[in-house]
């Protein structure tokens, strides 16, 4: 029974990661937009939903006590708008600038989470976030299973929507822009407009995942959204294979299994005072793994489609691409 409960808990977390990875896959895998601020958009979603749904709290703004569903929709809206603004600012420039800006977004979100006590509760975070099946909390197994069910359904909806989108005319334009920007533009498609949309939708999915996670654990703090999260999600996508939605889901479950497994292993092998050091070794291993996959099997497990970078050497045949937009 315990094992089943743990399995449900593990899968819930893994599926929430899958959602984030699906969002990143829309941005990077399908559209070729590089986002190094994943943790920031996840945090935006978590905090937005927490603000909207928690009971009134005198110590900070709001706690509006709204239904959980409103919180999730709000999270998607705010996350999507934040991503779209980031896109509008940088998508007319070289692709590296988007990377640097998203990195900055994550830094600033972390800063706001830590310092804007009136809004985010500061380093202590926000507690008492309502859980969808809070009434079942006395029977942990049922609680875990119902959480898993709801996260599973949400992931499935997003997955099917994305599969549909990537086959729709909209998805074909994104694909065309990624593979041959000049040809797509010459057919009258506005590259920037489509990219901003894809980036915004991807951000909204990440924010939704953050909101789900917040309502699943009931408590959020700035430490949940460190750059390591961004990094984990990237490894998940690369392992699964950029461009493939099913790859994003399976990559997430696989990498989370490795992560949780090696975490359990280090807690057995190392004494408590050495835990922090062992945890950093875990990150070293994952970092090396990312680099090795990039070198040896850049398409991951499921991503078999040919990829082309937006700009840079891969696009050197069209050196005036950035000027031609």
């Amino acid at each position, binding site marked *: 029974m315990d094992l089943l409960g743990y399995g449900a808990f593990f899968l819930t977390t893994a599926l929430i990661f899958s959602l984030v990875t699906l969002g990143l896959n829309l941005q990077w895998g399908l559209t*070729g937009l*590089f986002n*190094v601020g994943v943790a920031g958009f996840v945090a935006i979603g978590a905090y937005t939903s927490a603000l909207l749904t928690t009971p009134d709290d005198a110590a900070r703004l709001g706690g509006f006590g709204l239904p959980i569903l409103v919180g999730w929709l709000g999270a998607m809206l705010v996350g999507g708008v934040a991503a779209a603004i980031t896109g509008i*600012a*940088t998508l*007319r*420039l*070289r*692709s*590296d*600038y988007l*990377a*640097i*800006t998203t*990195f*900055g*977004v994550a*830094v*600033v979100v972390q*800063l706001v989470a*830590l*310092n804007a006590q009136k809004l985010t509760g500061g380093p202590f975070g926000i507690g008492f976030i309502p859980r969808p099946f809070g009434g079942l909390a006395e029977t942990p197994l049922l609680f875990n299973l119902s959480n898993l069910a709801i996260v599973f359904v949400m992931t499935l909806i997003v997955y099917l929507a994305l599969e549909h989108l990537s086959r729709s005319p909209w998805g074909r334009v994104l694909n065309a822009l990624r593979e041959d920007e000049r040809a797509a533009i010459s057919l009258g498609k506005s590259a920037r407009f489509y990219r901003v949309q894809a980036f915004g939708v991807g951000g909204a999915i990440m924010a939704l995942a953050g909101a789900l996670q917040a309502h699943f654990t009931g408590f959020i703090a700035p430490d949940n959204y460190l*750059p*390591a999260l961004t*990094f984990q999600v*990237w*490894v998940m996508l*690369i392992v699964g294979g950029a461009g493939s939605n099913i790859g994003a889901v399976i990559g997430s479950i696989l990498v989370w299994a490795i992560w949780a497994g090696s975490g359990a292993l280090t807690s057995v092998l190392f004494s408590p005072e050495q835990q*922090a*050091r062992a945890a*950093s*070794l*875990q*990150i*070293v291993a*994952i*970092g*090396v793994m*990312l*680099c090795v996959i*990039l*070198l040896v099997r*850049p398409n991951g497990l499921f991503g078999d489609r040919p*990829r*082309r*970078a*937006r*700009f*840079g*050497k*891969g696009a*050197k045949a069209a*050196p*005036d691409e*950035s*000027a031609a937009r």
Partner: protein
Amino acid sequence: MNLQFVVDGLLAGSMIGLGAIGVTLTYSILRFSNFAHGDFMAWGAYATLAVVGAIGAMFGKIAPIAPLSFGWPLIAALIIGMAVTGLLALALDLVLFARLRAKGQAIIVVMASFGASMALRSLLEFIFTSRPTYFSRAIQIAMPVGFGIRITPDQIALLLLTAVLVLGVHLLMTRTQTGRSMQALSQNAALARIVGIDVAKVVRVTWLISAALACVAGVMIGILIQIRPFMGFEMLLPMFAAAILGGIGSVPGAVLGGVIIGMAEAGAVQLIGAEWRAAVSFVILMAVLFVRPVGLFGVRER
């Protein structure tokens, strides 16, 4: 408003500027934004710290040079540290970046640098733990120099060092054949190859300069503030912002951008509060991207 922010800003600007030179060189010559650059700083600082420790073990306690907080061991260790950081960059290029560059996908290289950054930083955390350390625990008395400004001897020495290094890199870039080759490669890589420029050598020199300057910046942070595994990663955003503000590829631009951001940060610390310091570079970065994406001294990419 207290004028102390001028000195604080210049110092922060020196650290950011020295780092931004490396960012701008790797971006313009190797054509990718190196997210591991901050970690070169941290590795440089820790390497220097380790050498200082080794020298201390070999020669016993050595008195610092009169008004400064450090003696010749740190100076010697800094030079060795610069070499070690340079070798680290070359090694990383050999096993990772060069191979990915050969595949011709610039953005994959950026991603690899992100992974390398994470691994490098966590490795430092593993070896040295995340506890902050210091080159010296001695507290220096700041001398008043008028207008309510105070400065310590260490700070004066480091500002002078920065000025010398920046001048040196500028002369190297403009007056030597190697420097001209670097400029040529950044402006038109294909043409530079055709006229017979030794690309491999230019790449090596670029890494060595970038990493060595990052090491100096890291040691500056170590002398004036403290040494932590995260010290370089936290400098990443200011460095990128400075490189873009100054104009990608421009060494004077990177330094000027660094000083502007350093000053703005120091001013913001006085006016708004130290906890918002990190947001300053983001605001400046966004402003530059909206108003003048090529930066102060940048040229439009051809």
